[in-house]
């Protein structure tokens, strides 16, 4: 290899009593918007801090722009970061905050003021330049933190859950702004988040981590539709995972035998052995009448959860909890009361067999 801008090789980080990162191999292309995603404690933030040099790896290697970063202190790496807490300096004004990295580079006062003001202007904050940080709103502070990180024209920007402190409305606006910045600047963005919606909306590629290991990496739609293993399928939150064993074949499809019945699933090479497949909640049909789909089950409604434009119906199918996601008007038309019997069905082609059987 490689034309990767950032490359991580067999990266490990051990702390006394636990290991945060267990052997990560990852290449990040120049200009890529990559999201490190996973539950808390999965090692995503530690990985980001390792790239920034805020932590020293226990073993393995980090290279940025072809240069090994082992032993290079944080202040010598050009890897600015946006913190969840933003970490703005409260004793400096808005413009002084943005000037800070330029001051560290010993750029003359007039020049650095000019460049800081250009960035504030770009973020729509030039009227706030002389203000105290405490006088700004959450969204404005966010933009100051981004301006401060980008004022030195770095080749990469690291973001550690930057939007999780904002309210939903502001979060969406900042997502748009980050997307726009990424397109305009063309630099590499490494974005750590536990929120699927942010990762899906922003990233070219998602790296899903758990327990210090990468579980899957790929385009958001691929990770969503074609999860590698049960953890990934589970993390997506909208998948019904059914396990069983391959019982035979039916034309182009394999037949899998499970406690809930036999189902046809895609897979030309599947002949025997244990297997799990997922039926995505948005691809399962729901009706009061019997389904005529090839794969079908029946169950009792547990409850309905409102998610905005869509609703999720929870259904008890022989002790197994199924989730089905439908637009609100469809759910309303069905008049679902807890305890009512409903029938579910899905096409064999819409099921996905997990490549790594549990």
């Amino acid at each position, binding site marked *: 290899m490689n034309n990767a801008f950032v490359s991580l090789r067999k990266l490990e980080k051990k702390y006394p009593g636990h290991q945060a990162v267990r052997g990560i191999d990852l290449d990040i292309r120049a200009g890529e918007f990559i999201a490190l995603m996973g539950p808390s404690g999965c090692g995503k933030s530690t990985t980001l801090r390792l790239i920034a040099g*805020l932590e020293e790896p226990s073993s393995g290697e980090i290279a940025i722009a072809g240069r090994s970063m082992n032993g290079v202190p944080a202040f*010598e790496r050009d890897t*600015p970061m946006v913190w969840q807490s933003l970490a703005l300096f409260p*004793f400096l004004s*808005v413009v002084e905050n943005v000037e800070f990295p330029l001051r*560290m580079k010993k750029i003359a006062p007039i020049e650095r003021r000019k460049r800081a003001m250009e960035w504030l202007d770009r973020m729509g904050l*030039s*009227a706030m330049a*002389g*203000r105290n940080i405490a006088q700004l709103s959450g969204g404005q502070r966010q933009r100051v933190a981004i301006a401060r990180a980008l004022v030195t024209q770095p080749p990469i920007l690291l973001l550690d859950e930057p939007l999780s402190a904002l309210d939903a409305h502001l979060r969406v606006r900042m997502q748009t702004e980050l997307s726009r910045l990424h397109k305009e600047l063309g630099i590499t963005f490494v974005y750590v988040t536990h929120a699927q919606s942010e990762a899906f909306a922003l990233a070219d590629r998602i790296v899903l981590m758990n327990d210090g290991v990468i579980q899957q990496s790929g385009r958001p739609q691929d990770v969503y539709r074609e999860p590698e293993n049960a953890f990934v399928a589970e993390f997506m939150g909208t998948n019904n995972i059914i396990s069983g064993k391959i019982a035979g074949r039916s034309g182009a499809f394999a037949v899998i035998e499970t406690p809930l019945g036999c189902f046809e699933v895609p897979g030309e090479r599947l002949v025997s052995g244990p297997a799990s497949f997922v039926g995505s909640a948005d691809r399962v049909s729901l009706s009061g009448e019997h389904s005529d789909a090839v794969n079908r089950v029946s169950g009792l409604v547990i409850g309905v959860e409102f998610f905005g434009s869509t609703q999720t119906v929870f259904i008890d199918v022989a002790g197994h909890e199924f989730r089905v996601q439908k637009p609100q008007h469809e759910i309303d038309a069905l008049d679902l009361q807890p305890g009512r019997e409903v029938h579910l069905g899905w096409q064999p082609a819409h099921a996905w067999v997990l490549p790594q059987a549990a």
Partner: protein
Amino acid sequence: MADAAKWQTQDAHHPLTRLWTARRTGGSPAAVPVILGAPVVFWQAVFFAAPLVFLVVITSWRVRSFKLEPAFVLDNWEKVLNSGPFQKALVYTLEVSALSAILTLAFALPAAYTIAFRLSPRLRELAIAVLVVPVFSSYLLRIYAWQIVLSPGGIINSLTRWLFDLELQLLGGQFSLQVGLLTLTLPVAVLILVLALSGVDRTLLEAAANLGCRRARVVWHVLLPSIRGAVLLAGSTAFLMSFGDYISPVFLTGSKPPTLSILIVDTVKSGSQWPRASAIGVSMLVILTLVLLTVGWLGRERRFRKGGK
């Protein structure tokens, strides 16, 4: 509460009881801070404000054949402010206190930094305990200990005599005086700074490094600005403690040259000049107030201009 109810049922007709119960039960919430605050106000009035007024009043009294006489003369102020010994002592005391404040900060800042950032949590607790304990021991005792250590026949001189055949004049000068004052000021200053440093958000330090700030410069660019208020507080506390101190100048310099505190005692001893001693005391209070006002002004929140550049 139960008592009040009993009173009410038994002697509700009694006017005094009615007054009491009315106050207890019918009082508005606004009365609570007044009731809670009253003892403090009373204490301050009796033991601080009244003596202070008396101290100021007494400066205009007269002394005749060693007896105080009420009068209204400005003679005392004139004598004190124009006297050479007072002016010399004032300048000397200010110098000593300023030097003490600087030395205190010079020793306390690195010590506090080490305690707050370089020690393990257990060692940090131990260090803080070691700092706090001397505050509760007698200051006088500690100064006596220094006398023993620094005196011509003391520990240091015994050592230097034995090793280099050298006798050092340690006692009775600025050196011994500052050693004594540091004994007083250092634990307090280090405690103030350790508490302030412990409260500094560590992500700010990481952010500084992340933005290209070398470790040594982080102290100057982030750490000190973050604890500016505490540095001013520690410095001014050291200054004021040294300014009013009597024990170190007496026992470690033998009152030569005299500080203002010593001058007050001398003025009273020689001819019962209570009015003039009071004038010196009031001058010291004025200086104390000025120092506090200056520190308050320096330590105020930085107000940034509103709007554009």
